[in-house]
């Protein structure tokens, strides 16, 4: 048959004349775009560090300068950590972010599961409502919380607004939405059939969820919790409106940066910013190690 003959129109032009182009430009472009962004991230952190080393290395007398550990303490970081307001701010930040992450998971697990596994009336509407904290300007979330608490009993308003619970509530309102999205994606990735098998083996829905589904979400829960924690750490707008920025009371690290900037202490603001970066990186690294297969606590 002539159909397989090299003279057939199918073989014109000859395949032999084609050579694939080099892959180098492809990787250069892809890598180049990535490197620009990563370099910018590293540059802003390096600039913060450089600023502190150059501007904040002198004039701090935290411990006796004759002591062997004096160089470690008598600097901008030591001064910031010695400030009781900043120490309170660090404590409140750690506590509020951790509580926010835990509360977010408590909501994200059931909501994410229901959205992932079940069809029900109003599901699309619920889906859209859950995105509100993500798309809304943070300041509006705080303002809306403030307005909402005009309609609650006075004792509750006084216990929450401009108090520590307001810090946690404002952080939780936004962080929870991110945790819900993460948990929904986690449940979407878990094969539904394993749950169905558990049902045929004698489980109720709750047993199948608790014994089969939930153990498989460990890494997803860790990611959702970490994301909620990190989001809470960076929250500022709603806190300013709903919890205020009272020193030693509702001051968290993000508000400390704002307060230090507003009184013109750039050095302290940069120092606190770097403390926040260190805290965020530490949480992300610990979460990643804990979530990996080879590491358990």
């Amino acid at each position, binding site marked *: 048959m002539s159909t397989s003959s090299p003279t057939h129109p199918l073989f014109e032009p000859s395949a032999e004349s084609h050579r694939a182009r080099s892959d180098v430009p492809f990787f250069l472009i892809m890598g180049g775009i990535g490197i620009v962004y990563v370099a910018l991230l590293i540059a802003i952190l390096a600039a913060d560090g450089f600023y502190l080393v150059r501007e904040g290395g002198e004039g701090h007398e935290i411990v006796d300068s004759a002591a062997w550990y004096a160089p470690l303490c008598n600097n901008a970081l030591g001064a910031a950590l010695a400030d009781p307001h900043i120490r309170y701010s660090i404590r409140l930040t750690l506590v509020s972010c951790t509580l926010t992450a835990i509360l977010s998971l408590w909501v994200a697990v059931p909501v994410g599961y229901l959205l992932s596994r079940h069809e029900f009336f109003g599901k699309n509407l619920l889906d859209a409502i859950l995105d509100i904290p993500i798309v809304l300007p943070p300041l509006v979330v705080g303002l809306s919380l403030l307005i909402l608490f005009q309609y609650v009993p006075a004792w509750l308003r006084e216990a929450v607004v401009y108090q520590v619970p307001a810090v946690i509530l404002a952080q939780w309102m936004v962080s929870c939405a991110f945790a819900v999205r993460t948990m929904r994606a986690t449940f979407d990735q878990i094969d539904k059939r*394993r749950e*169905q*098998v558990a*049902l*045929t*083996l*004698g489980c109720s829905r709750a047993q199948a969820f608790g014994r089969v589904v939930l153990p*498989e979400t460990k890494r997803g829960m860790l990611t959702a919790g970490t994301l909620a924690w990190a989001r809470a750490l960076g929250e500022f707008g709603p806190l300013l409106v709903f919890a205020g920025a009272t020193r030693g009371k509702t001051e968290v690290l993000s508000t400390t940066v704002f307060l230090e900037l507003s009184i013109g202490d750039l050095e302290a603001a940069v120092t606190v910013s770097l403390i926040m970066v260190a805290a965020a990186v530490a949480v992300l690294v610990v979460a990643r190690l804990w979530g990996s297969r080879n590491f358990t606590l």
Partner: protein
Amino acid sequence: MIAVENLSIELGSFRLREISFSIEPGQYGLLMGKTGSGKTTLLEAVAGLKPVRQGRILLHGQDVTHWKPADRNIGYVPQDGALFTTMQVRDQLGFALTIRHVPRPKIDRRVDYLARMLDIGHLLDRTPHGLSGGEKQRVALGRALAFGPQVLCLDEPLSALDDQTRDQIIDLLRRISRETGVTCLHVTHNLEEARALADVQLLLQDGQVTVSSCLESNHAPAKGANSVPSSPQPRGPSGAVVRQS
């Protein structure tokens, strides 16, 4: 026995209408049909995992149409096993008994029995990660058989296996059917599996089940067979009753 009477299922635009068939106690039923014909949907309806629009499903004479999957006492083996990823094989085999609050020593004895029967004793302390396709199917079979189900539903359990492993699992399925007397409904599109295993062969085509062939049963449960302990199977006459609807 599995009896399906005038069963209708609707899932979106997909429909199965007035399906009827029955498989006698201890028989091995093969449900065949093209991809997308609704074999798996029908199997899942029998297992209680898909809602039924109308009609009845009877297991050993009892109408279970609206029962929860947990109450039907059906061993279900989905495609590729769907093993629980965080559990050791030992816990998977004992899972159904743990849910039923069976005492630990009895669970251990049952797990050892299944491990010997399925030749998976060396896998008991492993998680499913890294098990071969054949090993996964053996574990899935053991997990489904552990509580002594009256009916075993298998959804293309051999489709992802190489030829040699497939032959081994076919031998195993034949042995399980013979030794335990469990009534089996096995979904496949492979004619070779049907020839090797079927007491009764059902064909799902254009939303209807017809009998494709009714083979002389050579897998009928042996009298006094060494069954998975707990649910003695009623013995019916050999040969399937299949009605064309």
